[in-house]
């Protein structure tokens, strides 16, 4: 009961944040210099055409009304029509086609980062001050210092152009072929995951060391539990809460990285759509992508919060 209220409260907060966020996005977009009609049709377009364009794209009324119409469309899953990127196509269908690819790459990157960081963070904490720790923490410092888009090219150079193990460009949608998506998505996901794995591993190391110093570990030892058992149920179990929290906080960076990497590897996703929209000054597309990213981040944060509340008895339920 208390728990459903907690989740319901968080869901309500999510909806409110998206609403406020969409107003801000809309207003900032409106304040952009230049007339979208002129941008799309050119300086010398005939006034009748401009009027038709304005009516079609919902630009012929005062902005509160524009926002109201836009929002009621968004609620029904309609983001309006694209101006220039894919002229006159429904933005919602563009997003529907591309969102699975972005989510796929994001999840794949997240999985790689979690696996790598669990290994590196645990080794670093268990071998604290020894060679394994030094190697793991140095790799982490290095991982954080590498721009992901640069790492993409290094990976392409080594694994695609050099060894020929993976394709350098192009992505097969998971809907088409799951194995193809895993194969073609590996390098982009790896590039996004490297800095993340570094951040996760450092957090895990600190959290493990902190939990390992707690009195409850001495108490557990006084009961004669096996060291591995104590590590799993006392140390790791309590380190898990800050570890999962940091994953929630880093989701913004995962998605930020995906935006650039999609362009490099030719993944047709939300990020590359937003960059295309930015180049073509396709305001409705950029606006729609920003709102979609907002919803993704907030949803992931909600899921992370729920997981944390299940893991941590002290959190409100």
């Amino acid at each position: 009961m208390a728990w459903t209220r907690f989740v319901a409260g968080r869901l309500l907060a999510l909806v409110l944040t998206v609403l406020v966020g969409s107003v801000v996005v809309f207003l900032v977009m409106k304040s952009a210099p230049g007339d979208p009609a002129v941008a799309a049709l050119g300086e010398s377009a005939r006034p009748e055409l401009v009027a038709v364009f304005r009516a079609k794209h919902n630009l012929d009324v005062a902005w509160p009304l524009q926002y109201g119409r836009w929002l009621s469309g968004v609620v029904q899953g309609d983001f309006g029509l694209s101006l220039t990127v894919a002229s006159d196509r429904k933005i919602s269908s563009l997003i529907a086609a591309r969102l699975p690819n972005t989510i796929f790459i994001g999840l794949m990157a997240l999985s790689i980062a979690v696996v790598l960081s669990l290994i590196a963070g645990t080794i670093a904490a268990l071998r604290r001050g020894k060679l394994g720790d030094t190697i793991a923490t140095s790799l982490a410092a290095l991982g954080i210092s590498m721009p992901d888009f640069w790492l993409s090219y290094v990976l392409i150079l080594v694994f695609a152009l050099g060894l020929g193990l993976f394709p350098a460009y192009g992505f097969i949608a998971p809907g088409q072929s799951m194995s193809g998506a895993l194969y073609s998505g590996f390098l982009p996901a790896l590039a996004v995951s490297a800095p993340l794995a570094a951040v996760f591993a450092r957090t895990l190391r600190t959290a493990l060391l902190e939990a390992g110093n707690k009195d409850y570990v001495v108490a557990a030892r006084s009961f004669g539990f096996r060291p591995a058992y104590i590590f799993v149920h006392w140390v790791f179990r309590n380190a898990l809460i800050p570890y999962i929290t940091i994953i929630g906080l880093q989701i913004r960076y995962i998605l930020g990285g995906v935006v650039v990497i999609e362009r490099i590897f030719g993944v047709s996703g939300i990020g590359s759509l937003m960059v295309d929209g930015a180049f073509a000054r396709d305001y409705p597309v950029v606006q729609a992508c920003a709102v979609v990213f907002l919803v993704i981040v907030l949803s992931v944060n909600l899921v992370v919060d729920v997981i944390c509340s299940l893991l941590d008895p002290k959190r409100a339920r």
Partner: protein
Amino acid sequence: MAAVLRSLWNNRTARAGLLIVGLFLLAISVGGALMPYSATDMDFVNLLMPPDWTHPFGTDSFGRDVLTRVLLGGRVSLAISVIGVALAAMIGIPAGLAAAWYGGWIDQLLMRFADLLFAFPSFVLALFLMVVLGFGVTNVMLAITLVYVPIFARLTRNLALTVREEAYVQAARLMGQSTARILGREILPNIMAPIMVQASISIAFGVIIEAGLSFLGLGVQPPTPSLGVIMADGREYFNQGPWVLTLTGLFISFGLLGLNLLGDGLRDLTDPKLRERTTS
């Protein structure tokens, strides 16, 4: 200040960071002048030469020496990031102090706004701003500012809340000192260390944001040679001359490694919990 530097020097991580950052700064400040080439001179005899002793980073498609351009570009990129982060600190720190000091609706309003900015992927936020404001050096700085304002504001607020109830702050309050004086003289100096850690890490990520935006063509525009612009250029002929992009990126990673190590070292020194552990 001297004492801080000495304790930094005694920390292995911080020392490595200081050395790398020092070397990086030295390279971009005087390195360009020491190079026998100019960043703009084209040399059509030596187009896309791989790295050798005369051109350690090779040459680009116009025969320009890549290292010379990278040293100059490092200066541009670092300046953009430092100015962007400094602006963010100048807005975020007072906002955070105000939120912590006044509480109530001011706190609520500022923090909800920070939460909202936090809910966007940082790169998406920067990209969004570039679309609205247009491309170019100034707007890249503003984009970096926008990304880091909520981070500084929230950090400052949380830190200030913890020292607000300390005896020395209460004493200053009872002595009737002005709010501005208490915030500036009593609170701010006591929370400066973690803010400095955040600043050094932010500058590192600011360089990545600049490079990322410019790399996509949405940030600094050629011919201004920022690191992102040089990499975007190198991307055009990556198959023929991969060294332009990869070595430029390596140079960035080197500088960022220094900043990150410095941040780690600072954190070791300022986090009492960690300090306790390093002595035991």
